[in-house]
């Protein structure tokens, strides 16, 4: 491709906004990305960096605002349309076909062919030329599924370059890589830049960002905090800039348990896939927050506690009784109930009624001789739904017809019926609008007030701090910091969560 550095920036965004339901994901974002640079987008979970990347790459259409590509206004309808304009994305989930060779993957859908047959020699010649151009060395005839993750990513990059992409958006490219692979990826990014490619890098790893990027844009709560040269930033200035999300929900007052409150949940040296040596306790009336970045192992830890994920070491005790051979069912009997992270995939039977969903975990107690006592079920369900304020409380409506907030409350209702000793809530306000959020907070606090031990997993630092009496921060599968929820600051939580892996 022949490109001279254009007078206009490669990408210019003006007043881009995007809303999902009641949540404003992007608020009038304006941004310039210069050609031939690595431009990083950083921010905490939910700050809008991935959403912004998706807007640029055509995955999401903005609600308002304008985007210009090299001075020309564009409105991408799809990633394919964006690719026609030279904009490609390397997503977190790689799109390679494991059973095809490296070269075949790169030219997938654009193979040199004659009469419907792929011209293999052409294919491999082009592949080698391309590798040389970009400076990669991935064996052409190796099956893609046998390659290391970093090499698979290189195939995606090669694919983008083969389609004349001048702008490549990478969403958390190093999240799934080993340290050595990360170094390979960094070299690849540098060689792309050396060849005039523009790279937009969405990353959690501040050290990586500082090392690679020319410019950094910090996002907070869907808005741009600032864009600056990487040379002018440091880890601590970046963290400072991410702080202070605007308060869009107020929290009920905290009342921590007395020092003599008994321990309800005790976890000792628990290890499972994605979790190492987790040790902590939750006392009666206490809300313990579990913070950390996406992928830090929080959900894995709670799944290991309730036995939904096999643990290979460690112990869990409820009210002093050690729970061995855990499964979700046994832990329910022990008094531990978990509200899972994903309502639709792990929580609800969307086709079935609200009543059925609510009663699911306690159906045996609502039955006699194996038959559900319909009248009793209806009475119990109606009562508990009123308690958690599901509106409209029509027990016969399908659960799939409820709003996100009401679905979440339904899961709280199901949990309440179990009369638990310990409540684990994984991302209880994810995708829930502001109004419903507050009533979920009230519920959590009320339950703790009744003497339950509450373990709250949340990606929203403000939420964790607003509710928790104590905060545990996870990183890389381990609990790396314990903070006093009464005095801890966002800065402390983010610092513990963000401190980069030992790259370079």
């Amino acid at each position, binding site marked *: 491709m022949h490109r001279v550095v254009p007078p206009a920036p490669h990408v210019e965004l003006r007043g881009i906004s995007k809303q*999902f*339901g009641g949540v404003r*994901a992007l608020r009038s974002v304006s941004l310039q990305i210069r050609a031939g640079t690595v431009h990083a987008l950083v921010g905490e*979970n939910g700050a809008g*960096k991935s959403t912004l990347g998706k807007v640029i790459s055509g995955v999401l259409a903005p609600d308002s605002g304008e985007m210009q590509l090299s001075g020309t206004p564009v409105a991408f309808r799809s990633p394919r349309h964006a690719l026609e304009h030279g904009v490609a994305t390397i997503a977190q989930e790689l799109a390679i076909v494991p059973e095809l060779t490296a070269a075949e993957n790169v030219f997938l859908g654009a193979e040199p062919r004659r009469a419907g047959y792929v011209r293999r020699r052409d294919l491999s010649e082009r592949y080698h030329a391309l590798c040389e151009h970009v400076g990669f060395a991935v064996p052409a005839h190796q099956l893609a599924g046998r390659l290391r993750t970093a090499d698979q990513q290189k195939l995606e990059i090669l694919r983008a370059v083969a389609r004349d992409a001048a702008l490549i958006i990478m969403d958390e490219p190093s999240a799934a890589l080993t340290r050595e692979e990360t170094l390979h990826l960094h070299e690849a990014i540098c060689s792309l830049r050396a060849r005039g490619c523009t790279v937009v890098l969405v990353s959690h790893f501040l050290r990586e960002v500082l090392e690679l990027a020319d410019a950094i844009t910090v996002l907070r709560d869907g808005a741009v905090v600032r864009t600056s040269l990487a040379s002018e930033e440091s880890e601590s200035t970046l963290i400072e800039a991410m702080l202070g999300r605007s308060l869009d929900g107020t929290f009920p007052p905290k009342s921590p348990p007395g020092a003599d409150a008994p321990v309800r949940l005790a976890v000792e040296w628990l290890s499972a896939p994605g979790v190492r040596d987790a040790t902590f306790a939750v006392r009666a009336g206490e809300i313990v927050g579990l913070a950390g970045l996406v992928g830090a192992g929080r*959900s894995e830890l709670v799944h290991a506690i309730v036995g939904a994920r096999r643990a290979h070491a460690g112990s869990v005790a409820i009210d002093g009784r050690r729970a061995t051979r855990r499964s979700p069912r046994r832990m329910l009997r022990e008094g531990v109930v978990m509200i899972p992270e994903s309502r639709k995939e792990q929580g609800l039977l969307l086709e079935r009624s609200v009543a059925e969903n609510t009663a699911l975990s306690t159906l045996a107690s609502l039955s006699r001789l194996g038959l559900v006592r319909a009248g009793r079920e209806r009475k119990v369900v109606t009562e508990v739904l009123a308690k958690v304020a599901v509106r409209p409380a029509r027990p016969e409506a399908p659960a799939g017809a409820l709003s996100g907030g009401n679905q979440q409350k339904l899961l709280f209702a199901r949990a309440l019926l179990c009369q638990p000793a310990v409540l684990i809530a994984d991302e209880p306000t994810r995708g829930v609008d502001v109004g419903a959020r507050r009533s979920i907070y009230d519920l959590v606090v009320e339950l703790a007030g009744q003497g339950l031990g509450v373990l709250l997993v949340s990606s929203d630092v403000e939420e964790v701090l607003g509710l928790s009496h104590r905060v545990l921060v996870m990183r890389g599968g381990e609990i790396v910091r314990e903070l006093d929820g009464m005095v801890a600051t966002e800065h402390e939580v983010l610092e513990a969560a963000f401190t980069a892996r030992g790259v370079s």
Partner: protein
Amino acid sequence: MSLIDLQEPASPVPSRRLGLARSRLRGLVDVRRGGILLPFVALFIALSATSGPFLTKANLLNIVDQQASTLIPAAAATLVLVSGGIDLSIGAVYGLAGVTAAHLALVTNPVIAWVAGVGVGLLVGLVNGFVATVARINALIATLATSYVVSGISSLATGGNIITDFNRHSFNDLAGTSLFTVRTSTWVTLVVVVVLAFLLARSTLGRYMYAAGGNAEAARLAGVRVHKVQIIAFALSGTAAALGGVIDTSRVLSAQSSSGADLAFTVLAGVVVGGTSILGGVGSVWRSVVGVLFIALIGNGFDLLGLDPLYEQISLGVLLILAVGLDAWTRLRRA
């Protein structure tokens, strides 16, 4: 493990549009729920009007009685589909049960023969259940495999011959006697269907079946023993298929290993035409009954009206596509 930003809202659709989509969805679901009844009633009326002998007690009772060995397995197969599995071994089990019962009837008390025949089905059903759940082998393949094994065993046992019980008249009692002018096999069918319908709709176990088939992960996390529930469904399906085989053997007083060859497909066709989803979590026994009878009515109509039976198969095929298509379409609209 999810690496996606957790703050991304789950449903990025403005609530007003969602509301509209929802009300439209509810309409569709209702169409599917009641769906099969309308064409059934229409066909029933059409046949009553065009064919004199159709609307007679003898013909109608005859239809139901002939369908006994389809209705009983269909009722149980509904439980398997609802709980997220599928059972292709119905026909093979039907054959083995018939052969077993016919064999034993030659040497012992007919009641023992009946019970043993049904017991064989329970056994195969349990095996199916374990293979499809604990061993984590896809139910379609698992039951296809057991159907080959079971057919093979029946062929071995009979040496490929027909077993006849023509001189064992008491063996015929299960299908041949009448109670209040209705054959016992019809009564048995009625009891089985009502019990299974009640089980699925009203019992704790039935609820768990819907949960296991609708969202296995959610059910597991909510404390449902998904595997146990599915194993019970498979066991019931095996038992019901065997009961069908024993009833038919008792009716004709002979059995051969190949007699149930097409039964699994006939049963599944009836269940699916009734509106039970092959994807699990949706369905009911009464719908399967209507589905099976609907297909039987088509056959009966072709007979009574003297139409070419070749068209019967074609219309059944089209019907199946329509039924599955409607299911897929409603799911698509929901997503």
